[in-house]
């Protein structure tokens, strides 16, 4: 259990720091639809 906890805790901390230092918000990535592309974006493609 303790080993499993160590792996789990390490994964959580590493994922958090990787996302943080690269400028990603996990919530925004999970939402995925925050940037609905409509007219103005179509215009610029």
């Amino acid at each position, binding site marked *: *259990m*303790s080993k499993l*906890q*160590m792996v*789990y*805790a*390490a994964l*959580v*901390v590493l*994922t*958090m*720091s990787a*996302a*943080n*230092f*690269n*400028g*990603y*918000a*996990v*919530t*925004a*990535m999970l939402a995925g639809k*925050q*940037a*609905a*592309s*409509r*007219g*103005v*974006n179509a*215009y*610029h*493609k």
Partner: protein
Amino acid sequence: MDDQPSGSPPAQPVPPRAPGRPRTFACPSCGGTVTLRAVGQSISATCSQCSSLIDVADENLRIIEAAQSAMQDAEIPIGARARLSDIEWEVVGYMRRSDGPGDFRWTEYLLFNPYRGYRFLVEEYGHWTLVKMLNRDVPEAGKQGWIEANGRSYQFFGKGFARTTYVAGEFFWRASTADVTAVTDYIAPPYRLMVEKNDAEIIVSEGEYLDARAVATAFNTPLRTPSSAGVSQVNPHKPSLMVIGFAVIAATMLQLTSLAISANALVGSQTYQLTAADKGKTLSSGTFRLNRSGNIEIETGAYLINDWLELDMALVNVDTNESYPAFQSLEHYRGTDSDGDWEEGGNNGTVLLPPVPPGTYKLLIEPDAGLFAKPSSPLPVTVAIRYDVPIWSNYLIAMALLLAVPAISMIRRMMFEKSRWEKGGVAE
């Protein structure tokens, strides 16, 4: 012999004797063969043919109790041998017992070793306890709360009555299905203290929890696996906070570091006076330069009263014409109804774009708003653009995920204790 027997028998010490060979005699009731394994020490024995209970200390082999109810098999048969606590034991008898109402049942196997005396191996719902009678006095026995016994602090667990409902094999007292004792239980997992009292005596026994697999291995027989908590089983769900504690500290340090190194720079801020004439138009911010890769946060604010605003935006790299879409919707309504004042929505919002490469950018905005459909005064809309902003949501999610571990462990621990206290005690 260095130990005394335990359970509901008389408390007098068993005299030492050399190991003897089993003796057989004919059952006075049915003529079947009765085998005595603890010769010279057994007081009563049951006939394996008719299950009559015989007084073997009586030279006429008096029948204590005529044939009981139908023969009941036990998980461990009489005559089985096993090494428990580094001592070789032989099962010489067993009895079924229950609490007063009969809701809670257990089996007590009588173990015998000619040099070490007797022990009881108690089985209750798949949990096993090796029980030994205490020779010393326990003055607080029977008291509710915490008591000290045999160098341990015991917590009161329950009290009630224990009835013997079936006996098989041989015993060092005159066993009978008429036996009823008042029982008080205490626990200090993996230990358990049992105080049995009847009109003649008080017997205090101490048991130690045994793993079911160890018992099965010792007797070389398959035994059922317990599905719930045992009365004196050590709670296996220990909230180990050390690993999670280190992870929380590490995550906090990393979060503080990311806050310290984030530029969090305001690269553009503009207020647009939105009117109905802007319908269908595309508004543009001034250009700004990003020297290194980083995320972009667009913060929008508008003073809305019972109105809405949608901004369809694109962050455009003017060098490559690469665009990064974003969308922001604001609405703010308020009023009064039978429940009083109400309000929903808000006047501010932010949207975070993933990291964009270095370059020169501008923000294009295509607005849509409630004011486009009705005559209205200009609506000031402020759009601020921040670059390389620190992110708190990742840290908060990490904290939730990390703290969930001890929380789940604590819940499981509490559920185990609930299960222990629900089914372990002898009902009053």
